[in-house]
């Protein structure tokens, strides 16, 4: 078969990319080879547009055991253990088939973690949808949530947290980012390498079908009317198979019979084969006719490109084969030898003994194109960063209620109730507010986990917005008492071939880098999802940060809810006139405008230290940061958690918009602010600690009663019955489904 221009184009390869292939091979590729190049050089697998930028992120640190480049990152958490974690996106598949798309997203990230020899102990997710008023969005939302639960619950890994945002830009392009964390012995981490000539290459897990062929290229192509035809068969997740794989692989890994292992994710057998070979500086030869197949008549092209789920590729030490086979048999899995490691550095694919592809492994990995794509500051920014005139503000109580009812702020209980968040009996802080906290059995430690992002801020200022995402995730784990020790990121953006999008991307990565350096959070991995657009309209740029915090003493943790009547409430940090990008502007005025809150990284770092110290010594009884919806919403959330009311009087702020003084104080989203409660007798102690840390502090109120009362500068501005407010907030999301009987 000769390769025509049209065939090249249908593989999503640019003409110069095809030229590069011709040069590398020194001949025309076979169709199978072309398919292999196309998936490996797709944006999704090669990071060709993003790599030059990602290189600038800080990835090292005293605790880092494994930085980017492997299936997941790993940091040292003491006691000879490592936390292995990563975040992955499954945006496009979740739009096409919400349940299966989200479910297989969960399955994929779990494999990345246990592939490293780690037992997965926690899942989180970060989701974005269009407005819930739209039936299609409700269907997507309900399907995604059910799919995440369906997979995670079945396999028995608790989903301990997450976040959800809503904006019109996600209507045709929802975001489904899943984070998983596992625990491994630090010196037993296993890598995805193939080495040792003659070592056997094994395939284990589900049979290969025609599903997801071109999935990897699809994840890199913008959606348009025509993509409906290109839509490949949807991949169906099989959590039961994955549970067997998980247990069997962990058992095999205990034997030290493995050289390396990698899951077959995007680009399936192709990706795992050439990446393992490239990492080990070796060649790999396989014969696809040995690959277990679900359908008759599959071609080598299809077998190599299939993205069937729940499959693993292993390299086994010579002489240990039967031991490995036996363990898989115990779990009713049949490990099949499909090839072996060679010395020639080639990925050689045979079919019934006949060579159908032969490519240098590095050509597919390091040899992939690398683009310095052009960047331009988007024109929309000048206008968007100016706050238009807003008319007269609505009364504070009305704004308060509208915010509590808005799905971005409303309780996510309807969602996390569908997730098993307690299985494995490690969850010390259940979903509800702030970070999820899981203990590490066999040690005295615990880990606080949070994923955060704010597309509005990033849209208005990618550099600052990305920093704010890092800071919010770090602050959330610190509120629980966790010292941030590592991070991962999922970068969801539009089409990188547009200079404006590329500029957003580059600035956001710079922002993440600067914030992580200042807060001492090495990035150990992540994921890039580009081409998130519908008919040319991009999503809000949405980098999502996952941060892991280490808690030395699992008995000294805090959650956000107030603990006892009579406790004093202190506000750490400073409130400024900062409504830009706020939920207030979005919900009340339908605007994504203004300048996002200013972030002083030094002050944020001081705040994090103060929180960790205050929580770990038992002084801080509860801590909750002021994020979406500002101070008023944060205070309400602290009350809702435990059903204790509060009374607060907060200082005034000078504002540029004369009528908006109260609004600005109540609902502005100034960064680096946390509401903490301490027992009344220890206020002075807390104040001293804050002063020493250089963090502004003000005692603003006390816990108690059955109302939420807030005064600004001594003047009462909000006085709401707690129970009624709580009901609005807790029923808001469920009401979209129950009352309207929306279909799911």
């Amino acid at each position, binding site marked *: 078969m000769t390769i025509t221009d049209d065939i090249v184009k249908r593989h999503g390869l640019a003409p110069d990319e095809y030229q590069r292939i011709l040069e590398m091979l020194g001949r025309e590729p076979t169709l199978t080879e072309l398919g292999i190049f196309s998936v490996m050089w797709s944006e999704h697998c090669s990071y060709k547009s993003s790599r030059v930028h990602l290189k600038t992120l800080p990835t090292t640190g005293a605790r880092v055991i494994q930085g980017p480049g492997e299936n997941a990152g790993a940091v040292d958490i003491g006691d000879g253990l490592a936390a292995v974690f990563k975040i992955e996106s499954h945006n496009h598949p979740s739009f096409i088939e919400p349940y299966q798309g989200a479910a297989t997203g969960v399955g994929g990230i779990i494999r990345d973690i246990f592939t490293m020899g780690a037992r997965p102990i926690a899942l989180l997710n970060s989701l974005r949808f269009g407005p819930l008023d739209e039936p299609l969005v409700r269907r997507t939302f309900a399907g995604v949530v059910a799919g995440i639960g369906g997979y995670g619950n079945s396999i028995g890994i608790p989903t301990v947290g997450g976040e959800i945002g809503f904006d019109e830009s996600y209507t045709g392009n929802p975001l489904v980012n899943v984070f998983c964390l596992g625990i491994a012995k630090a010196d037993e981490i296993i890598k995805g390498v193939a080495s040792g000539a003659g070592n056997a290459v094994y395939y284990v897990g589900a049979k290969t079908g025609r599903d997801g062929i071109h999935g990897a290229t699809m994840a890199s192509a913008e959606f348009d009317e025509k993509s409906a035809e290109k839509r490949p068969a949807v991949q169906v997740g*099989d959590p039961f198979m994955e549970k067997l794989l998980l247990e069997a692989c962990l058992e095999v890994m205990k034997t030290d019979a493995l050289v390396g292992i990698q899951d077959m994710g995007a680009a399936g057998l192709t990706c795992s084969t050439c990446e393992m070979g490239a990492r080990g500086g070796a060649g790999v030869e396989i014969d696809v006719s040995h690959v277990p197949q679900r359908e008759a008549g599959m071609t080598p092209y299809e077998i190599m490109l299939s993205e069937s789920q729940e499959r693993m590729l292993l390299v086994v030490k010579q002489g240990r084969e039967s031991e490995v086979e036996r363990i898989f048999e115990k779990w009713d899995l049949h490990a099949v030898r499909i090839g072996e490691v060679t010395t020639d550095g080639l990925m050689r694919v045979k079919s019934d003994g006949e060579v159908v592809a032969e490519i240098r492994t590095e050509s597919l990995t390091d040899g992939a194109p690398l683009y310095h794509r052009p960047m331009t500051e988007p024109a929309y920014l000048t206008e968007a960063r100016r706050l238009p005139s807003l008319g007269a503000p609505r009364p504070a109580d009305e704004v308060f209620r509208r915010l509590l009812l808005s799905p971005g702020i409303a309780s996510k209980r309807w969602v996390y109730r569908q997730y098993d968040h307690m299985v494995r009996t490690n969850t010390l802080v259940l979903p509800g507010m702030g970070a999820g906290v899981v203990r590490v059995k066999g040690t005295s430690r615990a880990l606080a986990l949070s994923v955060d992002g704010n597309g509005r801020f990033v849209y208005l200022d990618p550099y600052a917005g990305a920093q704010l995402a890092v800071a919010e995730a770090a602050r959330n784990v610190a509120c629980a008492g966790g010292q941030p020790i590592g991070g991962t990121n999922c970068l969801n953006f539009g089409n990188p071939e547009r200079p404006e999008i590329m500029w957003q991307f580059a600035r956001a990565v710079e922002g993440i880098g600067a914030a992580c350096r200042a807060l001492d959070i090495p990035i150990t991995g992540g994921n890039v999802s580009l081409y998130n657009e519908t008919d040319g309209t991009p999503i809000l740029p949405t980098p999502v940060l996952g941060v892991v915090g280490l808690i030395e003493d699992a008995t000294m943790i805090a959650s956000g809810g107030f603990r006892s009547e009579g406790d004093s409430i202190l506000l750490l940090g400073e409130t400024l006139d900062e409504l830009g990008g706020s939920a207030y502007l979005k919900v009340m005025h339908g605007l994504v405008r203004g300048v996002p809150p200013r972030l002083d990284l030094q002050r944020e770092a001081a705040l994090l230290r103060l929180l960790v110290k205050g929580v770990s010594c038992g002084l801080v009884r509860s801590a909750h940061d002021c994020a979406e919806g500002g101070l008023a919403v944060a205070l309400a959330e602290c009350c809702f958690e435990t059903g204790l009311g509060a009374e607060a009087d907060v200082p005034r702020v000078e504002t540029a918009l004369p009528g908006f003084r109260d609004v600005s104080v109540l609902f502005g989203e100034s960064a680096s602010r946390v509401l903490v409660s301490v027992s009344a007798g220890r206020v002075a102690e807390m104040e001293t600690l804050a002063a020493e840390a250089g963090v502004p502090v003000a005692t603003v109120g006390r816990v108690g009663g059955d109302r939420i009362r807030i005064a600004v500068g001594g003047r009462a501005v909000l006085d709401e019955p707690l129970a009624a407010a709580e009901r609005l907030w807790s029923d808001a999301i469920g009401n979209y489904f129950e009352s309207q009987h929306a279909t799911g």
Partner: protein
Amino acid sequence: MRARVFVTLKPSVFDPQGTIVTDALHTLGYDAVKNVRQGKYFELEIDAGSEEEARRLALEAADKLLANTVIESYRVEVESSTERSVP
């Protein structure tokens, strides 16, 4: 009038449930059962003037709600009036 809707995974779509059922039947000794695919089955009571109308409604319901047409296909049968009289 009664319509029955059968929803099955499209042939190319992986059916983990059917696989488990097949395995379980083999364990029970039913080796003659070569393959099982699992689907959904709905019985709809429809207030319709004619079989035609009942069929149209059932087809619409299947397309809009009962089947996930991305991965499933469906088939509708309407019980004829003689059958209907059978309890």
